[in-house]
């Protein structure tokens, strides 16, 4: 039996191979001792754009910026309120001219002092068209923006005329129009200060960014891992409670979740939709599900005549009433979404402008009323609607199909609504930009900063940056302008809510649900929280 010996040999080789991997696998977990020196590992996605404060517009890059940078303001991880960080004070008399004093005693981790110039240089860099910064429009309110960032042609200036350094720690900002809540926007990462090393050796800085936050970057292998370590000399009040964080890029968040359950990873800040059902059982109290400043809506192509008539408004409202939000959020999203009753987010709090129930009856599931409303409006344009979405990420297909089902059941016509998948996010976006949407489409909005202004102006103001449906309403624009000019915060918020009323009356977009951040962590960690942007508050995590 020669063959048998061969088989034995092969089986033996396989056994050896498996043992070898077992040895290799054991070392994969994150070691290190506990306490304030413990290092935790966390899942990460490959940032899409170069890691510069004014070039980062997605969560993965933002996560890093939140750890290595501190700006003039910081949003309280619990209450989302903008609080002074590096800002000593921000004064204004007319909501247009601001004098900013930067606190003394702050340095970058390379020892360089953080001065007024660190901010002004960084902002000028961010606004300049030549630097291709994806977040340049954040500086759009500052005087002189059109000179450094014209809509077409080349820039005629390299610095914003509205920015002036007036002392080592003071500078003034002149806005092109009144914007009373502007200081509260300064917690956004795009407004972070930059050290001179950034300008002197740009490539070197990108390879290993240097900031002024509680962590420093120890090593960065693009596309696979970033090791951040606690910066011992960090001067701020929010020192890191752990020794550091290893951000590991995962090819798939399902794998990250599997690694967490196998004990190889400490923190997953994006539990995949397919695991939401198992997460509470797998993780128990180590599963977090808290509200984030994200709202999901259905936008309409107002550039299409059929959707932009008084009758169409009835159809839009009817469609809103035809969607069973409660059922969808419970069955598809396992309660990680909350049915929306206004166009903002609960993280703002009632004092910040969130108003539960603002939408009223129009957001209640009521098939009979919905059917009547749609029929009153002359029925669906063209007899049926297509809901467009990108099929490459998230579980958009699932809920779009559910929404269509809900509409079809309401109208008693199973061909009334169909999903229209688009292969990639880029293609989805490009069809939106080219105004090619044949019907309502998915529109998600994650806030940049926790202000009611951020949920309304970019989305519904005439020609605003994220007004994908090209909604336009003079009354809304007027109210937003008035609100921005109002120096008394509560009055400003009232105005914004009036503007939101205009959005409701026109059903400019159907609010679907508020999104929660979902995360899970290992037994080694405690004090894990998600901030209102659904990013873990890394510096407060304790490693046991």
């Amino acid at each position, binding site marked *: 039996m020669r063959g048998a010996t061969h088989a034995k040999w092969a089986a033996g080789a396989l056994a050896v191979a498996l043992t070898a*991997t077992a040895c290799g696998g054991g070392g*994969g977990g994150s070691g290190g001792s506990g306490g304030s020196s413990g290092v935790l590992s966390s899942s990460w996605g*490959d940032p899409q754009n170069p890691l510069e404060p004014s070039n980062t517009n997605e969560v993965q890059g933002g996560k890093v910026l939140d750890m290595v940078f501190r700006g003039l303001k910081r949003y309280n991880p619990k209450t989302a309120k903008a609080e002074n960080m590096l800002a000593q004070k921000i004064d204004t008399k007319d909501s247009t001219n601001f004098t900013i004093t930067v606190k003394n005693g702050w340095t970058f981790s390379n020892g360089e002092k953080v001065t007024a110039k660190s901010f002004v240089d960084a902002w000028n860099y961010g606004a300049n068209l030549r630097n291709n910064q994806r977040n340049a*429009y954040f500086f759009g309110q500052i005087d002189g923006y059109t000179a450094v960032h014209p809509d077409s042609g080349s820039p005629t200036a390299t610095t914003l005329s509205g920015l002036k350094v007036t002392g080592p720690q003071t500078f003034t900002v002149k806005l092109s129009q009144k914007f009373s809540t502007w200081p509260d926007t300064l917690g956004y990462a795009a407004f972070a200060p930059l050290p001179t090393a950034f300008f002197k050796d740009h490539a070197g800085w990108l390879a290993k960014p240097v900031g002024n936050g509680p962590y420093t970057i120890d090593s960065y292998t693009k596309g696979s891992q970033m090791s951040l370590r606690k910066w011992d000399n960090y001067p701020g009040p929010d020192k890191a409670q752990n020794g550091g964080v290893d951000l590991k890029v995962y090819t798939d968040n399902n*794998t990250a979740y*599997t690694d967490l359950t196998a004990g*190889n990873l400490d923190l997953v800040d994006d539990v995949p939709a397919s695991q939401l059902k198992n997460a509470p059982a797998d993780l128990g109290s180590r599963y977090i599900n808290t509200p984030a400043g994200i709202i999901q809506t259905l936008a309409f192509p107002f550039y299409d005549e059929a959707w932009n008539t008084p009758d169409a408004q009835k159809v839009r409202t009817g469609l809103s009433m035809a969607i069973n939000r409660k059922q969808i959020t419970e069955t598809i999203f396992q309660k990680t979404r909350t049915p929306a009753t206004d166009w903002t987010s609960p993280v703002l709090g009632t004092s910040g402008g969130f108003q539960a129930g603002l939408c009223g009856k129009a957001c209640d599931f009521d098939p009979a009323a919905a059917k009547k409303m749609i029929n009153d409006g002359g029925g669906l344009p063209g007899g049926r609607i297509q809901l467009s979405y990108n099929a490459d990420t998230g579980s958009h297909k699932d809920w779009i199909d559910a929404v269509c089902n809900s509409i079809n059941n309401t109208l008693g016509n199973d061909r009334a609504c169909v999903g229209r998948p688009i292969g990639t996010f*880029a*293609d989805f976006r490009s069809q939106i*930009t080219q105004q090619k949407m044949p019907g309502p489409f998915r529109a998600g909005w994650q806030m940049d900063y926790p202000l009611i202004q951020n949920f309304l102006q970019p989305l519904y103001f005439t020609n605003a940056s994220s007004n994908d449906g090209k909604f336009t309403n003079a009354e809304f624009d007027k109210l937003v302008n008035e609100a921005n000019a109002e120096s008394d915060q509560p009055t400003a918020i009232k105005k914004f809510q009036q503007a939101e009323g205009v959005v409701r009356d026109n059903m400019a977009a159907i609010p679907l649900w508020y999104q929660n951040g979902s995360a899970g962590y290992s037994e080694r960690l405690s004090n894990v929280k998600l901030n209102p942007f659904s990013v873990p508050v890394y510096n407060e995590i304790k490693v046991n």
Partner: protein
Amino acid sequence: MGRYVIRRLLQMIPVFIGATLLIFLMVNVMGDPIAGLCGERQCDPATAAQLRHEFGLDKPVWQQYAIYMGNVFTGDFGTAFNGQEVTELMGTAFPVTIRLTIVAIVFEIIIGITLGVLTGLRRGRPADSGVLLLTLVVISVPTFVTGLIVQLLFGVKWDLISPSVSSAAPLDELIVPGLVLASVSLAYVTRLTRTSIAENTRSDYVRTAVAKGLPRHRVITRHLLRNSLIPVVTFIGTDIGALMGGAIVTERIFNIHGVGFQLYQGILRQNTQTVVGFVTILVIIFLLANLLVDLLYAVLDPRIRYA
């Protein structure tokens, strides 16, 4: 032989140009990639124009292709959207995937051919039927199912391996993913070898070798196996390219930062430079592997000569 190789190498040029052009057009048809760079909002027109210019997307497609090919011949594969050189991405991704592919090929050769010879010599016996049934199961179960089950059992339930591969991706961590990647091809190699061996056991030269009184292992390895390997080598050769490209699924499951991962991201982000660059290299590998297979024929069977 030398002239044959040169002729084959020259034939690669049109194939190479055609393949890259096709990929280039395919990625281009997908639409404007810049639109996806600014998140859920429109890039402001000036920045979009600037980015388009930076990545050379403002020129007509034929011109983009010409410029791209010109750069490729100087070793410049362009820049990915995150500011990294595509050559840098290749430098990190290809070694990992090549390691994974080698593990897979080694499994195919060792396990596949061994099982093939064993079953081929025992046609119709229970061992043969057992292996046939097993390979049938392996072939019919999709790789991602095998991968996820293996990951769940070995990684989570029994804790024998780490469910994900670390970013350095050393050889020992790649053994299980390599086995998963190889599984389907492995089954084919087994079946191919089995059929080929079973056919040749009754051939004249084997009878002659046995009649000469050669020891059994020599008959099998020198005479029977060598002649039976030609279809198997063809399959394994073409499989090299398929494995490297097909690693997309395995790499995603086991968190391997190789070619599959980069291609997947490139396609999602519609990053022409990344996708075309990686596919270009894959095309070259595929062509070279095919050439190697053809040259191996002559080694296995001296009757096959190349003028």
